[in-house]
């Protein structure tokens, strides 16, 4: 086994074994520490995946469109021709690192504060299981394996919301689980339509259509896109998300918004568009229109929202709309914008949920009307909230800008009345995004302190800073050097577009 293959296995095995170890450690605090160490080791294994394995990047006509840097291909269930096929390339690597980082930050945060509802040990173990599922989804190069990992995430996430969430947590968790299960059913059918028609589940072989007939591709794309649209979520299949976010504990919201939604957009790019490019071309206008509807409706709902966490949840609908618009253009610019938008949204919305959680923990309320004057009592927290909001509204120079601006650029690039209109409307959505985030800031940070805010101390805990500072720095770094994400993604995206546009 090469170093790369060892790392691939380690990225999945370390958190899985970590979860077992956490569950086996009898005392609460040491168990959380074990979990945090496991998450840190996972990140350490994920980062070096970027090295090596890229010697054959140059595109040649015969090469497959997916060319992993490292891959591991083992027979798994030979009787059913299922293979344990993992691989990493420039499309998946940024998301793998983001997942490992956010899980680590969440585990570290849990060292300091365990939300009410259950033991911290169980929470950390569940976080690690969720991590295994998400990382497996990003690494799987076999459709059945992909589906399996996709499903692994669901139940532990359900347990996190139902166990450690807010007052209405059970209903929200049930809705989350049932709604996304509905998406999973479509995914399962879609996967088997593809596998039955093509006779293989290998993503590398399937990417580019793999000889699927036009009819099969249309059916497969419709099923897969619907499944991923539920997860992403794409308007109007989003309504599980506000409830789940509002009720989930802080770390649950961070993982949910930061990386769980990315499974949908990643699946759309890697599986739906890759396997059924003809279906993608056929459905692109519909996808584009829905994406822009998501941007506009999401922003407008945020403008009328009265709860901080719910507002940030709906902002995810708008932001993911930009990502999906980028994918829908089916251009290299659009897909690259979608990839960096994905990562940026994970970093920024992760930070926003951390901060909203901190505000809610300190004041005991998430209602906007009861919050004001935070900059008087806790200037640093208010400053960080302002930074996160400004990053979220896509200020050029910060991470959020590239994905949103270049989704618009890609729509303009496609041209024609439909896409130009979509580009214009998406840009208008950018202004609405600014409107609701400024409304949030004005309400929460400015003015005289409300009774709820009046008692808030100025200090921030060390664990909070530990969890937040990496995200702040990352938002700045990706904004100033977008090549951190896009540099590795350029070759695989060009290869993908090469087969999609054929």
């Amino acid at each position, binding site marked *: 086994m090469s170093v790369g293959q060892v790392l691939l296995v380690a990225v999945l095995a370390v958190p899985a074994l970590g979860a077992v170890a956490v569950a086996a450690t009898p005392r609460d605090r040491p168990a959380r520490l074990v979990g945090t160490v496991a998450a840190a080791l996972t990140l350490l294994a994920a980062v070096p995946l970027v090295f090596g394995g890229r010697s054959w990047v140059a595109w040649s006509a015969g090469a497959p469109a997916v060319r992993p840097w490292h891959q591991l291909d083992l027979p798994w269930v030979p009787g059913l021709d299922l293979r344990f096929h993992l691989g990493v390339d420039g499309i998946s690597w940024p998301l793998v690192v983001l997942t490992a980082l956010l899980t680590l930050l969440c585990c570290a945060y849990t060292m300091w504060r365990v939300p009410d509802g259950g033991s911290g040990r169980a929470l950390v173990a569940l976080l690690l299981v969720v991590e295994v599922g998400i990382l497996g989804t990003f690494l799987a190069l076999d459709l059945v394996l992909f589906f399996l990992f996709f499903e692994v995430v669901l139940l532990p996430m359900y347990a996190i919301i139902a166990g450690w969430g807010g007052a209405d947590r059970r209903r929200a968790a049930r809705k989350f689980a049932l709604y996304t299960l509905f998406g999973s059913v479509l995914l399962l059918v879609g996967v088997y339509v593809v596998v039955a028609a093509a006779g293989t589940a290998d993503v590398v072989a399937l990417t580019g259509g793999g000889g699927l007939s036009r009819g099969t591709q249309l059916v497969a794309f419709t099923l897969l896109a619907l499944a991923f649209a539920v997860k992403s979520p794409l308007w109007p299949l989003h309504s599980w998300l506000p409830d789940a976010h509002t009720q989930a504990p802080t770390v649950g919201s961070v993982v949910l918004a930061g990386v769980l939604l990315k499974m949908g957009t990643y699946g759309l790019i890697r599986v739906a568009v890759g396997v059924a490019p003809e279906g993608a071309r056929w459905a692109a206008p519909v996808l584009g229109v829905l994406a822009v509807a998501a941007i506009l409706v999401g922003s*407008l709902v945020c403008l009328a929202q009265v709860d901080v966490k719910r507002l940030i949840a709906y902002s995810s609908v708008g932001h993911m709309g930009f990502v999906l618009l980028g994918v829908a253009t089916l251009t290299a610019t659009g897909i690259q914008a979608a990839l960096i938008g994905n990562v940026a949204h994970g970093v920024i919305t992760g930070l926003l949920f951390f901060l909203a959680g901190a505000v809610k923990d300190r004041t005991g309320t998430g209602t906007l009307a009861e919050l004001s004057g935070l900059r008087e009592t806790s200037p640093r927290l208010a400053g960080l909230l302002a930074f996160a909001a400004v990053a979220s509204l896509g200020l050029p120079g910060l991470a959020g800008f590239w994905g949103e601006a270049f989704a618009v650029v890609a729509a303009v690039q496609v041209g024609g009345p439909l896409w130009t209109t979509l*580009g214009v409307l998406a840009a208008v959505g950018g202004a609405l995004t*600014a409107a609701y985030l400024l409304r949030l800031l004005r309400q929460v940070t400015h003015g005289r302190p409300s009774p709820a805010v009046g008692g808030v101390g100025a200090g921030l805990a060390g664990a909070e800073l530990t969890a937040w500072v990496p995200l702040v720095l990352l938002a700045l770094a990706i904004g100033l050097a*977008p090549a951190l994400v896009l540099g590795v993604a*350029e070759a695989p995206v060009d290869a993908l577009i090469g087969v999609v546009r054929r």
Partner: protein
Amino acid sequence: MTGLLGALLPAVPLTAGLLGLLLPPAPRPDDTTGGARARQVAVALGVAGAVGALALAVALLVTVDGPTQTSTTWVDIGGLTVTLGVRLDGAAALVAVAVTAVALAVQVYSIGYLRRGPHDDIDVDHRYPPYAAQISIFTGAMLLVVVAGDLIMLLVGWEVMGLCSYLLIAHDRRLAGAPAAAVKAFLVTRVGDVGFLLGIALLGVSTGSFRISDVLAHDHSGVTLTAAGLLLLAGVAGKSAQFPLHTWLPDAMAGPTPISALIHAATMVAAGVYAVARLYPLFTAAPVTLTVLGVLGATTLLLGALAATAQDDIKRVLAWSTVSQLGYMTGALAVGSPSAALFHLLTHAAFKALLFLAAGAVIHAVGTTLMSEMGGLRRSMPVTFWCTVVGLGALVGVPPLAGFWSKDGVLTVAESAALEGTGPAPSWVGWIVWIAGLVGVAVTAWYAGRLLLRAFFGEPRLPLVTPHDPPALLRWPVLLLAVPAALLGLAGYVGAFADRLRFPTVPVAGSEDGLVHLGPGVLLPLALLVVGAGLVALRWRRDPAGDPASALGPLRPVFARAFRLDDVQHTLVVRPVRALARAARTGDEVVVDGAVEGSGRAASGLGGGLAALHRAALPRAAAGVLAGALLIGLAAALMGVVR
């Protein structure tokens, strides 16, 4: 070498600002010095950043000869190249010097202005470190716009400025209206930036690169150029406060006075005019855009001047005068002379910074911004009085003060565009810019005279306070700014200065032979100036205690509320968007989520119903089983028959 200077120019204040943000924002409760140390560090960082930038700008001005540019790939997104690099010429260096000089004056002035006085009941300099840091970032962002060699880089500076204006306008915690004004400033400019982004997208997609030199060199189609130009103008109108996106600027007076000076003189409003000058060949190639700009500019010019006549707040008079002067600059661009526009931008930077800082000294001394509570300050504040006289003289264009030369330059170009059709746009655009400019001269003289008479002449209307000239930290920036406000216009005679403002890439219009034009043409604006000033002086002589604005009669409330455009904006944009937002929220919760919840309820209802059906007594259950068996038997028999 020049490229390095250009790259360092925005980097120095940006670094100072980012470092300043790391300082503790507010004194800790256990800090007995009240955060004095953090304040000193913040002052040092802010001033050092501004001094460094000024030195770099001056060095750049000395070394730059001819356009220079450097560039390196920033990121390549699907075949569209975004570069990182600077594009320098004489005009960029001159604007950079103006920006950094005003920024330095503002940093120094703020030290004295935002300090707790013996009579202040609360701490006015609360949170000085972030304030100074935000000024540094604001300056750096403007310098980024000035030197940017790539449209995306320009956009970065452009929007960061919007953010800094938001943060600084909301700085003063004592004003209840400040947060709303700050949000308005960011949002109105952001609405314009929707167009700016789309314009950049169109140009970038058409070129395949966002580098300004590539964009200028590319042969765009006519439709692309017109569309992109008009879209860019939306962003310019937002930043440079052109009708109909000017409404944020007067409200931005809620910010501390030094910030007003910064926004009005050096940063923000200058960016729009500068960006048009920077991309001027694109606009001349699509004359429709310049026609639109001319109409907007002339409207803005008159709107701002008339609104300034009826304000009682001294800062709002100056704010509306900025709106009006920006109309002169965009008018000059529309009639084909970016040189005249930038010349006026530079002189305006000097005299408007002077006027705001002098007004700040007045407000500092009397504790109010309302002119109805001032009066008679000429004797108690002689230094401030004379500096204000110089600033207002430059504003109305009294020879030989700075504004006279630059405004005359704008009017001459407009006259030639009107009479001889030398402009890139149709000659009627020249006519409206020229006539609006001439009327503007008279109105400007009127409101400037009113400001001077109301604030500095007559009897004091607030006898309780004893005003005095400001302390040295406030006085010196004002005094030093009076020098360029008085003399900068004469620089138009200096060859090196005029050469740096000449645009090599612009097709030379008929009258573009120099910056200053001293001919019989100057008599007309001078006569109008005398008429305006004479009218207000006559009115004041008749009733020294009254407000000359009463001469406006029924128009006074209309002008005071600036033609109620705020209300129009509220009715046409803000309220519909809010209603739409409420409708979207209701629709989302009732229809979209209702369908989900409804299907859930329907499923469990159906399940409940079926469960109830299954809970049957023995006879019915037995009948059911038998019926089922019968059905299966029938089906088996039928299938057997078929087979």
